[in-house]
């Protein structure tokens, strides 16, 4: 367990936190942008038809 928490975030703590968050946010936004900009419904199937 990290017992040095009372001293606040260290430089490496900031780096790990920001890089990890930046990675997951950028990856997610990039993926959804790719999906949504080419989101032709694949094949709605009979269930989606009236």
């Amino acid at each position, binding site marked *: 367990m990290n017992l040095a928490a009372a001293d606040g975030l260290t430089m490496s703590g900031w780096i790990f936190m920001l890089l990890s968050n930046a990675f997951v946010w950028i990856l997610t936004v990039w993926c959804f942008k790719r999906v949504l900009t080419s989101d032709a419904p694949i094949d709605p199937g009979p*269930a989606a038809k009236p």
Partner: protein
Amino acid sequence: MADQQKQAWGSRLGVILAVAGSAVGLGNFLRFPGQAAANGGGAFMIPYFCALLFLGIPIGWAEWAMGRYGGRKGFHSAPAIMGVVGRGSFMRYVGVIGVLIPVGVYFYYIFIESWCLGYFWKYLTGGIGVDAAATMNEQLQQSGSYWQGFIGMGEDGALFAGGHGGVLVFWLITMALNVWFVFRGLSKGIEAFCKWAMPAMAVIALIVLARVLTLHPNELHPDQNVESGLAYMWNPKFEELWKAKTWINAAGQIFFSLSVGFGVIINYASYCKRKDDVVLSGLTASATNELFEVGFGGMITIPAAFIFMGAVGIVGKGTFGLGFNTLPVVFAQMPAGNVIGALWFLMLFLAAITSSLSMLQPTAAFVQEALGCSRSKAIGGTVALALAGSLYCLWFTGGTIGWSTIDDWVGTFLIVVLALFQIVAFGWCFGVGRGIDEAHEGAQLRIPGFMRFIIKFVAPAYLLVSIGWFSVHDLGGWWGKAFVPGHTDADGKVDYSPVAGYSLILVAVVAALLIVITRIGEKRWRAAGLDLDGTRPPDDVAEIPGATR
């Protein structure tokens, strides 16, 4: 009539959100932060992202590709698809694990899901009675007592004795909601629900995150503030990287988190069409899960607990203790705590139900295609089995031994075992080159070339090491706990419980039942001339007679 219609996804976004919904669960918000803080803080992210890159994403792609390929052959269940991809009976019967896991986990997951609904309702109507004026230890005790009573931890059968916060009512409501959405079908039920539940979860998570990051420092302990809470979670301890358990725990977290090796993705992907992009869809579902895990789970749970309670509320609490014992104390002290508490448990409930829906669906699909019955009958049979298993977990609540034993064996160990066989079936039996070519059909993204090496060698080796680790460190103890009277744990305390044995017998009985159903299905598929051993060209497709999908 849903029975008469072929099951299919309505849109690419829908299938992505359904898979992501399956992956995002309680583990993202409760298990991940505890694992990270206990295994090196920020440094944990190194093995964690390695496991994501070398295990989670490639195995996920393999599952997507295998599922879609199996679907083209007319199959939608893990045993049938594993038989096709793995070219024979051995992999088909190994694939039974891909049904045993979702249905076995469902037995207890639905119970935990009902805690979330119950706590949501309690916070909506005034909280669970933690006195913010009491000392911290007293508050923890109040919260702990309430939680233990609510889930019947005191003794077996306690929930049926009354006076336990109505968890049985919440369980019934949860069960009914699950059955309703699965009965409505893939597109109108699971997909439609996930399409609003996932954005709703993201919005709630953002609200709670904003609340946590704007909290004032603890008045009694000014050193307990947002920054120190984040520091507790994120300051790296690099020495943890030299310990094997850090890497094993990181891999375990990725498995729990992404739903790989669970038998779910292979089923969901089987409803995709040949030109549906499984590469980008798989990556997007994984990325969404990571956003909820790292971006929300990693920033909310531990910092909030640390600000109000310091390390005392976190150390040794475990996944559920953190969520249902510690956080209620946090909400009791937080301004507008009941509102935030209600939102938090609503978010957990949505995370849980999107996961539990994905556990019923593969089992129902398996029963339907193996026995050739209608979808409504298959769902009826699946629900009957799920009810029986869940009632077992509801009865044997003493010390949580009944359901935690199933969690150890089925929800932890077998996931890694199934993942190993899946990646071997994909990389070695089907052929890694052919498998990646199959995945590339209709794909906007190319799987990087180095993934061939990872899928064929690195991922199986990583999984073998994980299984070896479990075998050495856990399996003996788990077995002794269930079947060796007088067995003691590492601290010398007797941990033998016949209930653990009952749970394993229950799992064995369910596995035997699934094997029998697979055997029946195998005969039917062979008689119908289906390509159940995957020996014919990819486009040799046939319909399963009798099964109205």
